[in-house]
Structure formats: C-alpha cells, structure tokens
C-alpha cells in the first residue's frame, strides 16, 4: 500500500466531482420500495399462472384459512427480508435485533413443515419405512419440479437485487446482506409456487419448497462477500 496522491489533492477532486446531486436513497423511500415488492409478487404470481400448470383446486383452497395463513407467512417473510436488505444497504443502520423480523416467520414455516413431515412419516410408516426411501420417493415422484422453479426464480431475482444493492446501496455486512437477499427472493418464489403446486403435504413442502429456499440463503451467504463488495 503506497500513498498515491496527497490527500489535499484528493479533496479537491472530490469536491469538483460533487457538483451533481447524488441520487436519493432515503428511508422515506421505504414504503415505495415495499410497494414495489408487493406489486412484484402479484406480477410474478400472475406470470407463473400463465406459464406453469394451474392447480385445479385453487379457487376452493383460496378460501381456506390454512392456505391464506401460509401465503401470508411467505409474503411476510419476503417483505421483512426486503426491509432488512434495504436497511442493510445504509451504513450504520443495521441492528441485529431487526433480524428477528425475518427469522421468526422463517422458523414458523420451517418448524411447521418439519412437524407435519415428521407426523406424516409416522402416519405413513409402512409406506416410507426409512428416511432414505422417503427421499428416493420424493425425488422419483416430483423430480424436483417445484424446487427447481423456486431455485431458478430465486437466483434470477437475487441477481437483480444484488445488482441494485451493489450499485445503489452500501452494504457493510456483505455475507449477512447476501443471506437476506436469498431469504427475500426465495420466499417470494415460494409464495408464487404456492398458487401453482397442488401438493400441500408437509414432506413435499419441506423438500421442494423449504430446502431450495435454504439453498438460496446459503448461496447468498457464501457469495455475498464476493458479489456485493463495493
């Protein structure tokens, strides 16, 4: 490391470069930002309905409490994680306790899916004798369709959000920021797939809706430092 130019000269250059007003990135833009996420979720779901096969019982299920609760939880996680990504993009604004906003619903969804899965495993004990046969059965029957869609949509959205974060924001905890980008985009993709996938068993949800999301979070965490560096 060598000193390239005198600091006074650098100050002159910075002052000369500051004539244009910087593009605003303020907390008052947060409602607009969240609005964009909600609109994005609606558009993405509408597009998925055109591309993916529509589940036949959607109208019937849309009136049920558990379906609405599940969809609300996914959307809640999406928006909570989106807020964390936004706040993480402003230096000095990150608070560890804010993470609870996103982690709590994430734990609720994961915990419920796991509990139902375990229940189903015992219930269908004869059918799924061992964990390995259960995994083989899931892969053979579903071929990872939902999981692949969630992962691919999530990766696409993550790339866009990471690009925005790198250029417009200034994250200072890169791995954490990458993980929250994964949480937000994975949850949005899971929200979308819920309207297309008719399989609501706990095991299916755990394997093909929850685990791809976890993979996205892990990917975001692993790549955060490399991708988001500014």
């Amino acid at each position, binding site marked *: *490391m*060598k*000193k*390239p*130019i005198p*600091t006074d000269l*650098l*100050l002159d*250059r*910075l*002052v000369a*470069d*500051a*004539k*244009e*007003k*910087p*593009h*605003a*990135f*303020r*907390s*008052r833009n947060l409602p607009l930002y969240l609005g964009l996420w909600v609109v994005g979720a609606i558009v993405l779901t509408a597009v998925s309905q055109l591309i993916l096969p529509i589940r036949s019982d959607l109208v019937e299920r849309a009136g049920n409490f558990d379906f609405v609760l599940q969809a609300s939880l996914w959307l809640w996680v999406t928006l909570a994680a989106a807020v964390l990504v936004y706040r993480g*993009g*402003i*230096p*000095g*604004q*990150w608070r560890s306790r804010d993470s609870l906003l996103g982690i709590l619903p994430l734990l609720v969804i994961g915990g419920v899916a796991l509990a139902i899965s375990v229940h189903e495993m015992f219930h269908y004990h004869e059918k799924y004798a061992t964990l390995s046969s259960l995994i083989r059965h899931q892969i053979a029957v579903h071929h990872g369709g939902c999981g692949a869609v969630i992962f691919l949509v999530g990766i696409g959205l993550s790339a866009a959000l990471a690009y925005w974060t790198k250029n*417009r*924001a*200034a994250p*200072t905890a890169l791995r954490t920021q990458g993980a929250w980008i994964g949480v937000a985009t994975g949850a949005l993709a899971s929200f979308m797939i819920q309207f297309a996938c008719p399989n609501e068993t706990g095991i299916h949800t755990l394997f093909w809706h929850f685990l791809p999301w976890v993979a996205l979070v892990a990917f975001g965490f692993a790549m955060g430092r490399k991708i988001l*560096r*500014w």
Partner: protein
Amino acid sequence: MVMKNTRSKEPSKVEARLRGLFLKSQNGEERAYREFLVEVTSMLRTYLSHQLRHSAVLGSEHAEELVQEVLISVHNKRATYDPSQPILPWLFAIAKYRMIDQYRKDSRMKMQSVQPISVDSDEVGNEIERIPAPEPEEPFGENLEEFLSALTPKQRRLIELTKLQEKSIQETCQIMGMGESAVKVGVHRAMKLMQALATERHVRKEV
C-alpha cells in the same frame, strides 16, 4: 438501585456541525462539502491511526491511504446517507467496512507472496517467457523501486536477475540454487503482484 442513563440524547456539537455541512453539500454547496471533507479527514486520520497502531496486518503507516479509501467511499456512496439519522454512525460504519476490507485484501496479498512454490509449472514457464521486461514508459519504469519493495527478498532477487540483468532462467537457477520450475513460478508470481500494484495505482490516479 436504579441507574440513571447519563447519555445525552442531544446530538454532539461535532455531529450537528458535520450533519449540517453534509446536508448543505447534498444540495450542491461546494464550500460546505469541502469543510465537511476536511473535518472528516482529520477525524478519520485520528481514528484509523489509533485502530492500526496495534494491527498485525496493517501498520499505522497505512492510515493515510486508508483515510483516502474511506473518503472516496464516502463520496461515492454519499447518496445512501439518510438525513433523518445521525451522520457519525454512517461515517464510521463505512470507515470500519473499508478497514476490514483492506485487512482482507492485504492478508490475501501477503498469503500469495509467501505461498510455497509449486514445481509442476511448464505452462507458467511458457507464460513467463512471453512477459516482456518493463519498458521505461510503462508504470513499472518510474516507480520500479517502489514496486520491488512490495516483493519478498527472494522475489525481488528473481526479478533483478531475470528482468533487469536479463539473465537466462538457467543462469538464475545456478545463482539462486533453485530448480527451473521454481524460478519460473517465482518470477511469474512476482510479475503478477507488481502488475496488480501498478493497476491499483492506475485506478487511483483515475479517481
């Protein structure tokens, strides 16, 4: 016994002054921006010198460069400041981030320069032959001593022999008592390190 919170919720004078200057500068006031930068520079200089004093990776002699890095970052990301929030946490969050980033970068460079030399390196050897000795008009030319000082003594000697004294690889092997592949790899790594430093310097000049 209930402890009273003695911390004042009022912003400090420094905070208020810097915030005022920065908000003015956001509206295009050059003078306010200069005042802000001058104050921040002296504040950062003190903070970073103190932080680097006991650092094993970066010495306090690097404080000035780090100050410049932070100033450039603050300038580039000045739009991310939220006027409803205090400015000092924003400023020091950037300074801390840049410092950690510099630690990582420096550790990586040091790791690269002390990695053991591999002996399986024919491809690298061929590549070495294609790398020309630095011409006077190239970035290495006028700052050669500076770039050489960034190398380990062994790398420096290799560059001196092969590039400056134009000795052949075989001659260098004999002088250094090293294998041919080890010499080729050593020269390759030294050249890469010098090129990285030259590029970094070039980018800084562009700012």
